[in-house]
């Protein structure tokens, strides 16, 4: 079903996530949208609420060997391993183009020590032309990687606080779902001074080639994304949004506008499309149109009014 664009014109799509204002709630997720150029021919960048850039680290990284991808039922395992050009090259070669993007550009930073994060936070400020800084404390694909910071509340608080102290940009803490209590992690990020929480990163998973009798991914294990993880992500957004007083960017398996609305109702203020872009490079546009039409149909004048409608106290 293609919702009518004409109908939805009166809906207010702008959303405020603490210090970050987005023209609409549909973002693209880090690692699925490069540095904003790859899809431009198919999906007009100016219509996106924002783009979260491919994760960067202080030094360049070649990432993991192939195979890096394995398809699973309604899902995708990846172990890219943070391949990226490094901070210096990002600033000299990519940032000049990124700052010209006609939408909010959010940098995503990963590190192996608090000092790594501090170094990148120091280099990326409002003057860089970025809209916000997403702190990846949840990458499952590198040894001793960000995920250590994402599974221990005290470490999470420490790294978020360190980043917050160095940058004047809004700080988004991207949480890992690979924890016993996602609420405890979100509370730690809040204590560290995070302005926004984004969740979920991928779920650690594995797939085995039964004929070769060995793991499909060269890295053996990888992060699961796609519709397969969506119910887990919705649950986590719902729990965190009721327990922590911070705006949330919800993601995990969003392919359609119905999926996106589910996240908003669960308590997200904005959504990110990741693996869905691989299936349909125009997915974010259809999702935005669909959200507007949904608002129209439900007599809601602003998308922001949908946030948390499925919270316990509201039903």
């Amino acid at each position, binding site marked *: 079903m293609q919702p009518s664009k004409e109908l939805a014109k009166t809906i207010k799509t702008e959303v405020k996530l603490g210090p970050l204002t987005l023209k609409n709630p549909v973002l693209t997720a880090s*690692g*699925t*949208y*490069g540095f904003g150029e*790859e*899809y431009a*021919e*198919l999906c007009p960048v100016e219509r996106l609420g924002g783009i979260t850039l*491919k994760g960067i680290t202080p030094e360049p990284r*070649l*990432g993991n*060997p*192939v*195979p*890096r*991808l*394995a*398809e699973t*039922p*309604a*899902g*995708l395992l*990846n172990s*890219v391993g943070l*391949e990226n050009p490094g901070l210096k090259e990002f600033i000299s070669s990519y940032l000049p183009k990124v700052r010209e993007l006609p939408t909010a550009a959010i940098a995503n930073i990963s590190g192996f020590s608090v000092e790594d994060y501090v170094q990148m936070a120091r280099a990326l400020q409002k003057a860089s032309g970025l809209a916000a800084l997403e702190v990846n404390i949840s990458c499952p694909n590198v040894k001793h990687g960000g995920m250590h910071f994402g599974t221990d509340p005290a470490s999470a608080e420490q790294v978020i606080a360190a980043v917050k102290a160095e940058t004047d940009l809004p700080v988004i803490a991207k949480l890992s779902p690979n924890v016993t209590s996602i609420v405890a992690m979100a509370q730690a990020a809040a204590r560290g001074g995070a302005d926004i929480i984004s969740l979920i990163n991928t779920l650690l998973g594995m797939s085995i080639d039964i004929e070769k009798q060995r793991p499909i991914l*060269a890295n053996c294990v990888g992060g699961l994304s*796609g*519709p397969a993880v969506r119910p887990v992500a919705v649950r986590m957004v719902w729990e965190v949004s009721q327990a922590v007083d911070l705006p949330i960017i919800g993601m995990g398996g969003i*392919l359609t506008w119905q999926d996106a609305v589910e996240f908003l109702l669960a308590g997200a203020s904005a959504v990110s499309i990741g*693996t869905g*872009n*691989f*299936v*349909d*490079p*125009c997915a974010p546009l259809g999702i935005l149109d669909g959200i507007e039409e949904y608002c129209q149909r439900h007599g809601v004048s602003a998308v922001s009014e949908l946030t948390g409608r499925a919270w316990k106290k509201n039903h």
Partner: protein
Amino acid sequence: MLLEDAIITEHGGMGDPQYKIWRLVLKIEMTKEVKPGQFVHLKVSTGRDPLLRRPISIAGIDRDKQEITLLYRLKGKGTEVLTQAKPGEKLNLLGPLGQGFTVPQSGTLYLVAGGIGIFPLLPLAQEALALGVTVHLFWGGGNQSFLESAGLSFWQALDIAVEVSTLDGSMGVQGNVLDLLRKHELAESGRVAVCGPMPMMAAVSEFFKETNFEVEASLEERMGCGLGACLGCVCTLRDEQGKLRRGKVCKDGPVFRAKEVVWDAAL
């Protein structure tokens, strides 16, 4: 590059069913843009399983009829679902994608294929022939029945030299395509386009190393976006200074200069 719903004009098995080779002809708008060696990224189902698109190389371009031909082997869930698609139905297609082969303007072009690696080479042969290039095919397969099932007659219909090898000796030289190449007296210089399994392409690249032939290889890898954004399908390249870097098979390739490719998959 376009995202379009392509209409299936023909679709069915090709040759002996044991080789599971299928031929799919699609009516599309972007035939003018298509270059030999490029591929399309097909959505094989409207559901969520299989989730990802499937990259398939373009094995035929008919600009007058605005059609492309795709040849593929039924291998897993994605291609199995694809075989169900019927003429008259539509398939969502993203393409044409990637960097294709260099089409030589003159001289000699050797095409070296291993198994179903033959598929993306036909459009290159046709374009080169039209420019007056001397084209020579070296193709290795398991046996005669496989070669016939994988389109040998298309090649025999062209005005080019066709040499084959079979592992069982049922046709041409017994052995693999390297055995075939070793028996051939090479021209002084020219271009080589190779497509097949990675170890075979590595061996062909090595074979031509000390010659005046420029070798291009078409690589294959599990793909995500097909646009160079997800970094799922990389290969490793070594520049002249010996520095390693990643190449995106979907965007920088699938065709790469063979001497730059690091064939050791462990890196």
